[in-house]
């Protein structure tokens, strides 16, 4: 089984990387590209820890074959914001004390970013359903909802300027 060339865009950068045909997108991102932000919590699409954006849409990267991303644009948590230049969601999560063990956080932030891209003023219900595919065992979700709500206002105001 020869490796294949996966050509796609990752966090706004064009990438060509050799991957085994039988690895998932999650594995390729983590092992071949060193982007360990997305996590494997279950491998079967039932926990959301592996959430990345595929052409702007949140997907379970553990359920995609890496080669299925060819020609597409993928964004991981590493492409949402960086220390010193945090996305409003990341900033709100930090200030409101959201992360505990932190394992679910990259996936939740990517799901939340998709909610904000879709809806200017998401209701609590919009947000809850927007991250319903992300299991968290530490926080009980309440502070996440508050942080996402706050960030939505920042994003809307920022866009309005």
């Amino acid at each position: 089984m020869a490796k294949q060339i996966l050509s796609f865009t990752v966090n706004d950068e064009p990438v060509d990387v050799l991957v085994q045909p039988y690895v998932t997108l999650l594995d390729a991102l983590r092992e071949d590209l060193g982007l360990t932000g997305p996590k494997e919590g279950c491998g079967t699409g039932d926990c959301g820890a592996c959430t990345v954006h595929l052409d702007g849409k949140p997907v379970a990267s553990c359920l995609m074959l890496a080669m299925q991303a060819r020609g597409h644009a993928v964004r991981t948590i590493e492409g949402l914001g960086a220390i010193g230049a945090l996305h409003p969601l990341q900033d709100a999560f930090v200030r409101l004390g959201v992360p505990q063990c932190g394992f679910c956080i990259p996936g939740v932030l990517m799901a939340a970013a998709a909610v904000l891209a879709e809806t200017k003023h998401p209701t609590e219900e919009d947000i809850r359903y927007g991250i319903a595919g992300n299991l968290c065992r530490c926080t009980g979700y309440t502070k996440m909802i508050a942080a996402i709500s706050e960030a939505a206002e920042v994003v809307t105001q920022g866009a309005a300027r």
Partner: protein
Amino acid sequence: MRRFDLATPDNIDDCLKLLAERPAETKLVAGGTDLLPQMKNGLIKPARVIDLSGVPEVHVLAPDDGRGVRVGAAVTARQLERDPRIQSTYRSLAESGALVGSIQVRNLATVGGNICNAAPSADMAPPLVALDAEAVIAGPTGRRRVPMAAFFTGVRRTVLAPDELLLEFSVPAPGPHSGGCYLRHTPRRELDIAVVGVASQVTLADGVCTKARICLAAVATTPVRATAAEQALEGQRLTPQLIEQAATLAIEAAKPISDQRGSVEFRRHLVRVLTRRTLTTALARASA
């Protein structure tokens, strides 16, 4: 997952040729949301996988010469959930798409995958059956069409031959004064799988029901139509009492088992409840 070869054809004919080479050892992947978990569990160990993501023919979502809609096998649950035409005219199909897994799963999961995986609990099957849809199948000798009501032959079994591929669904427009609804019962609000699912579709003429279709999921080895209930409704005005009778008759079509998701008793009870609720909503939508 164990190792396998991967083919990435960019058209349907190459795809069929590849499939014909070693059909018994080959699996097709579109969304992967059923296939990959099964491969990771070692239930399926294909030597080769054919990726459909680059095959344009299975991604179509377009009107069908004004007589209905063509839904490609690789159309995602999320697309069905959000497409305005599906929402307005084929509402039960949009509702079933909206219930699959989570957003992250729905952006990958395909209607074709859901149908070909043929789990008894497949959410998108009852609406397709209730809408009298047909499966368009491509094989080495050409194309054929199979009504959805005849597509499933058992648990995880369909009429597809190993060298055949599901191309698309042809869903006829239900006609004016029609309404449909899909509901399922699950213990959680997301990331779950149907304990029982019901799709109801009705068409009215001058307030009388001219056509009724009720299809049940997760209560038999395949999705199953509640024909006795349908017959009780056709030709009648749909009063709450008649709906209740139909809901009770629907139980007869169900042959549920007791498993960790639900007991026989609870499933039979849910068939009545969900049939009543989906018929009531379908009627309201048809009357609007």
